[in-house]
């Protein structure tokens, strides 16, 4: 057990980055994942405890331009209430409807949800089908340095990301979806609220002249990380959304989804459910 020697709640990003430069800081915003993980002992504190919540430049949604930017400390409630995002990226707002409870949505941040890197994280599938990237910052040679990586390269395993210990996730960004972009999100659990997904699926594509283009399909809780379902995507790309295409996409799920048995569901059940969900989501798009 490590003694926490410093608590920091800076107002500027550079102050926070200087604090994480030695890689010995536990970073949080709402604390909704950190608190239970440290209470139960699955996660240990580092020497410094760093709250990002007061850093104004890490909050807020910029939705005016070609690139949509959601600051890391933006809460799930703020995304849920954003009329701009409801118009630009309804698939993301839809996912917030199924996210925990209002009390948790009011505290939890999108950056924290991504950095927690749960295979079942609710923000991951919709952001993956939006083609999102994460912005990572660090303090080097007296300045703030940033880099971007695609979200799908960010997730390395349960609780593991490509973020270096000295880095902070500062924002999630994605290109404004084209006007004919169609998105869907579906998640399953025994009850509608406060549920960690048994499986989840997100779909995004546009339909041009009756054919699916730019298809992205993402899945949660069927592998060590949230993932892009490349085989399902290949079965759909350039095809008309008819019964044969849907059947091929459903058949392809077994190539992408490699679930495990755990306390929430068996691998068999997850494999079955993800097929049902892919079929339902595609039928829903087809009908509308």
């Amino acid at each position, binding site marked *: *057990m*490590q*003694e*926490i*020697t*410093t*608590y920091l*709640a800076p107002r500027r990003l550079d102050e926070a980055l200087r604090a994480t430069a030695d890689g010995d800081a536990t970073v*949080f915003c*709402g*604390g*909704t994942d950190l*608190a*239970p993980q*440290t*209470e*139960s002992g699955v996660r240990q*504190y580092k020497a410094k*405890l760093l*709250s990002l*919540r007061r850093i104004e430049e890490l909050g807020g949604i910029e939705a005016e331009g070609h690139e949509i930017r959601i600051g890391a400390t933006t809460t799930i*409630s703020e995304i849920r209430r954003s009329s701009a995002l409801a118009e630009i990226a309804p698939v993301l707002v839809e996912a917030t409807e199924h996210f*925990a*409870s*209002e*009390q*948790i949505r*009011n*505290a939890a941040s999108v950056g924290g949800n991504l950095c927690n890197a749960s295979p079942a994280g609710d923000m991951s599938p919709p952001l993956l089908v939006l083609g999102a990237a994460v912005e990572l910052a660090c303090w080097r040679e007296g300045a703030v340095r940033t880099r971007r990586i695609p979200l799908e390269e960010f997730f390395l395993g349960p609780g593991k990301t490509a973020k270096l210990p000295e880095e902070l996730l500062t924002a999630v960004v994605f290109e404004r979806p084209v006007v004919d972009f169609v998105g869907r999100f579906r998640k399953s659990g025994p009850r*509608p*609220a*406060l549920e960690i997904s048994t499986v989840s699926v997100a779909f995004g594509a546009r339909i041009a002249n009756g054919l699916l283009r730019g298809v992205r399909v993402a899945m949660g809780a069927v592998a060590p990380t949230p993932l892009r379902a490349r085989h399902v995507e290949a079965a759909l790309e350039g095809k008309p959304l008819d019964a044969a295409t849907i059947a091929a996409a459903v058949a392809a799920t077994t190539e992408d989804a490699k679930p495990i048995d755990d306390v929430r569901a068996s691998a068999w059940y997850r494999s079955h459910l993800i097929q049902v969900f892919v079929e339902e989501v595609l039928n829903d798009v087809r009908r509308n």
Partner: protein
Amino acid sequence: MMSVETEINFKLNGREVSLRVPATMKALAMLRDRLGLTGTKYACGEGECGACTINVDGKTVNSCLMYAVDCDGREVVTVEGLRTPEGLHPVQQAFVDHGAIQCGFCTPGMIMQAQHLLENNPTLTREEAKRGLEGNICRCTGYTKVLDAVEAVADKNGRCSHG
């Protein structure tokens, strides 16, 4: 485990408070064990049940998940802060009038969340109340009267018909 203590200052139920708390202490433990406000209940301790719901800067959160240090500079309201000099808050009164209580352990959290919902949507429907109270679990399963109480306040607020 040892952890550094930090001085925090915040507004609690309308009054300024100042105290030193360990960095890992949760707001719930601070309220109950340091400040003697035991209306906010400890139940699951992991954000599943809502018994510890408090209002921070106008939004409800689970105080079992909130770090006490994060209260610094903010405005915190607990169930003890709802009552006015004139008497019980209308939501509290509605819970009394409708017998929206069984063992009572979830009641403070239910009332805090119901008050928050009604403040943001004074004439909400029963369906909206259900969605908004999803994060509050009643172990006795006494949900019907809670929803009746919330609806009664919505009716008093000028709601036209039952939703």
